[in-house]
């Protein structure tokens, strides 16, 4: 069983990610993130520079939506199962009758990234792009793909 959904990027095709270590948000170009030509397993946080497998950087919104979709699928399957059970039991017209109240699904919202105030950078090592909040001279920015400082 597979559940899939799409995330719409901002006007330049950037999608938001979240560092599992420091909680900071940054954006990556959707095309580069999903490129089959340059696959990768880990991401580096552009702010704290620490690294973890790429799924750990999915934003809380994405995780919530995935959980909601999974929950709704489970509710749907349970409702189908109880529905069949009810028909089967009630068809026999015996002493036992069954009724059930269908389980409610949760609302899900469309994920769409907005244009925000981050600065766009290109890594001089791997030539891939990112958007981060940057204060010149006061912080270092690290490439999320290769980890070098920009």
């Amino acid at each position, binding site marked *: 069983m597979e559940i899939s959904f799409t995330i719409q990027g901002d006007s330049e095709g950037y999608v938001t990610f979240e560092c599992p*270590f420091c909680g900071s948000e940054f954006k990556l170009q959707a095309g580069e993130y999903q490129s089959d030509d340059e696959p990768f397993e880990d991401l*580096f946080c552009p702010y*704290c*520079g*620490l*690294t*973890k497998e790429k799924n750990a950087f999915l934003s809380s919104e994405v995780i919530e939506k995935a959980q909601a979709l999974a929950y709704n699928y489970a509710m749907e399957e349970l409702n189908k199962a109880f529905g069949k059970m009810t028909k089967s039991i009630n068809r026999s017209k015996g002493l036992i009758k069954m009724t059930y109240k269908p389980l409610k699904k949760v609302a899900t919202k469309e994920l769409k990234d907005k244009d925000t105030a981050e600065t766009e950078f290109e890594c001089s090592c791997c030539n891939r792009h990112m958007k981060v909040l940057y204060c010149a*001279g*006061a*912080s*270092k920015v*690290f490439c999320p793909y290769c*980890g*070098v*400082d920009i």
Partner: protein
Amino acid sequence: MSNLTELRKLSLEFRRLSSNLLNSNIDNADVNLSRFLKYINENNTISAILNERISDIDYDFKQCFLIDTGDWAEFNFPDDENLHLKAQYDYMTFIVTSEETNVRHQAMSYSWSDRNINNQIQKFADKAFKPLIDFINDQISMEMIVVEDTAKSASIVQHFGDNYGTINTQGSGEINSQNTVNLNSDILKLSEKILTSLSDMTDVSEDAIEDVKDDLESVAEQVKSPIPKKSRLQKALNGIRKFVFDVTNKAAITLVAGAVTNADWNNLIEQIEQFIQTL
């Protein structure tokens, strides 16, 4: 102070080791902690950063990490950052060097809501040692910023395109410069160049060419005059502008003729405007 390349390599290596420690599981936690501690002890830059803060401090790490209470262990972080750094470093050393304990044993001695042992180890590493990791990471980054700024101020590279005046440049301080710009010779040269090319222009009426020729000669006359008349120059300039507009926009004919280009016409118009402003 290390050079920038060394610092960048150091930063990447340190962040990789730190991440391995923070992502540890039951199988590799002890190895990751041992490697991390060995790296910060053997690296001169990092050990210097740490020693600057903690070498003179006498503080028992068990006041920060309450592990021998007989109950669940607790964290009791001090307000003073240096005391906290010292405690983290000593706690790390204690776990690595002691034969009676290891990372898993220490992690499980604290109370966590998560029952998964790998999650407990990661939460323990995060709570116990991440502040030290963040401190060292920030110090390395600041060192890189300082080295970069020093390198930038030592040399300035400036690229200039066409220069029609004077360029004065230096790395720091003030430059006082007085320049007198003489447009006269440039205007005369351009006018002469364009005048000689007018006969090569095709598909333009003779009347239009005669009119612009009069305007160009009027400009040359005023520029050479000791007391140039602004109104005559303005009138001639308007005529030249109209000619350029009519030929390029209305008739879609090129101004290029002989050695004269569109840029020559535009430069001439710009320089006449500047000359008029000086009057």
